[in-house]
């Protein structure tokens, strides 16, 4: 009861819950699921862009791209660590991803088809991620909120880089401009869907908001994102693939067309273009690395024994 009251008070005063604090089992579960899914998304998200590291068209772009994909691995690490403070081990989370039990952001089941997709992912996918994540910096669970602060700082850098790639392409040759437009056409819809289903179809949102994890509804965040990217697209000289997109004076927002939610749910269920490939790539990396992890563990154990041994001798 004391724990429960303390927790309630933290919620009411909008203060941080820390690992040592008592928390409702459902709160813990919700967070583990959300934080680990977020971590998994960073890990799987390395693949579409990683696909272009070897073929990046200039050394500068290659360097920036390598650094970016590496940052994603870093974000994965922060987030797994945050989730571990909730009592779930990294290996357990890995296992959930490995077996396909855990989800990750569905957009990574789409391919990075051309170099321009690297730009579109940076601009739209990282852009949507930031819109989603900035409020999460104030999430009630301390380690998660703090991890998000670090992540957001780097993500906004990535978004800027993506925008620059597209800007260069859209001011380049005709072929480059077409490449940029195609990538935006492909990425726009799935990026808007990153905020999750419409509020009416998102049953868990209410509880997450009550717990100060989520601060805005899916549709609110989506609107915020649309309002942000419309002028950015204009500055790029590229068109967003929605003929219904227009400023609504009354609402003070851009109106946009309904998204293809059938496709969204179908991809979530495993029928996206690359669901199988993404998981197979991850599994192959884990499988091929198993002997290395075993060796590192065995070596560490031997070293620890040796240290204990010499400590005994010198004692």
């Amino acid at each position: 009861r004391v724990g429960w009251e303390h927790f309630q008070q933290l919620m009411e005063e909008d203060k941080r819950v820390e690992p040592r604090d008592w928390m409702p089992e459902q709160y813990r579960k919700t967070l583990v699921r959300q934080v680990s899914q977020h971590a998994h998304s960073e890990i799987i998200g390395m693949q579409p862009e990683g696909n272009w590291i070897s073929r990046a068209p200039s050394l500068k772009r290659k360097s920036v791209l390598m650094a970016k994909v590496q940052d994603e691995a870093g974000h994965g690490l922060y987030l797994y660590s945050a989730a571990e403070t909730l009592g779930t081990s990294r290996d357990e989370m890995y296992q959930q991803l490995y077996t396909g039990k855990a989800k990750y952001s569905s957009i990574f089941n789409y391919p990075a088809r051309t170099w321009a997709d690297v730009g579109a992912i940076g601009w739209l996918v990282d852009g949507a991620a930031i819109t989603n994540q900035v409020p999460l910096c104030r999430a009630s669970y301390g380690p998660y909120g703090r991890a998000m602060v670090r992540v957001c700082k780097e993500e906004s850098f990535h978004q800027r880089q993506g925008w620059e790639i597209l800007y260069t392409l859209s001011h380049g040759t005709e072929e480059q401009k077409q490449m940029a437009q195609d990538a935006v056409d492909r990425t726009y819809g799935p990026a808007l869907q990153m905020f999750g289903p419409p509020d009416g179809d998102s049953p868990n949102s209410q509880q997450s908001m009550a717990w100060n994890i989520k601060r805005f509804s899916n549709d609110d965040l989506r609107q915020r994102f649309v309002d942000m990217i419309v002028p950015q697209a204009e500055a790029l000289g590229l068109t967003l693939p929605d003929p219904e997109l227009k400023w609504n004076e009354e609402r003070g927002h851009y109106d946009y067309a309904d998204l293809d939610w059938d496709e969204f749910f179908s991809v979530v269920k495993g029928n996206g273009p690359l669901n199988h490939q993404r998981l197979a790539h991850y599994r192959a990396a884990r499988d091929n690395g198993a002997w290395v992890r075993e060796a590192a563990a065995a070596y560490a154990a031997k070293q620890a024994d040796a240290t204990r041994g010499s400590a005994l001798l010198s004692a």
Partner: protein
Amino acid sequence: PEETARYALLLGDDCLILAQRLGHWISRAPELEEDIALGNIALDLLGHARFLLTYAGSAWGKSEDDLAYFRSEEEFRSCRLVEQENGDFAQTIARQLLFSFYTHELYQRLIHSADSTLSAIADKALKEVDYHQDHAAQWLLRLGGGTEESSRRMQNGLEAVWPYLEELFADVEPTAELSKNDIAVLPSSLRENVLTRLTAIIEQAGLRVPDAKGALGADRSGRFSEHRGFILAEMQVLARQHPGATW
């Protein structure tokens, strides 16, 4: 300066090709921390390549990208060690071990180059290669002293790359000529220290120093290897589809 440019190019090609090879590990490493570590090393090497190619290109009015993307297989001067396939993690570590021990020795000496640009590049690179060396050595010890399987794989990794060690110490041109003016470091003069240090760490890891002699063809010409063409086909494909484009 033409000769110095060719020397810088040769050094830069090694870094570029190895960065290209290592970049493949990102998202495929045995552990998340290694995705990051190998990515870091690849990034460092790419950085060194960019300094060196930019410097080389300045002699011919060419950019780093002209040199990286629009030279043919015949025109590259990378050594065969960096062109070797990643293989398993142990083979990659073996390749890293040889290359980082070699470049560490090289840059330590190149700091004193009579060419101030090369000296500055070496100075900057050396700090990073320090870490590369340590990374490779730590993994050598871990894999050598880990499990039976890891020790076997690590030994195989060493055997796979060892034939390409000697090429690093071959006194090719323009390096040999430039070393007379203290611009370049004479490759053969690095050999003893590198081999001594490699031998020590390999023995410490409980492994055998391979007895393979240097593979025939230590001239960096590409004539004695089958890998370079595949590496460049992939690396250059997009840039070459759009000649003259800006990215």
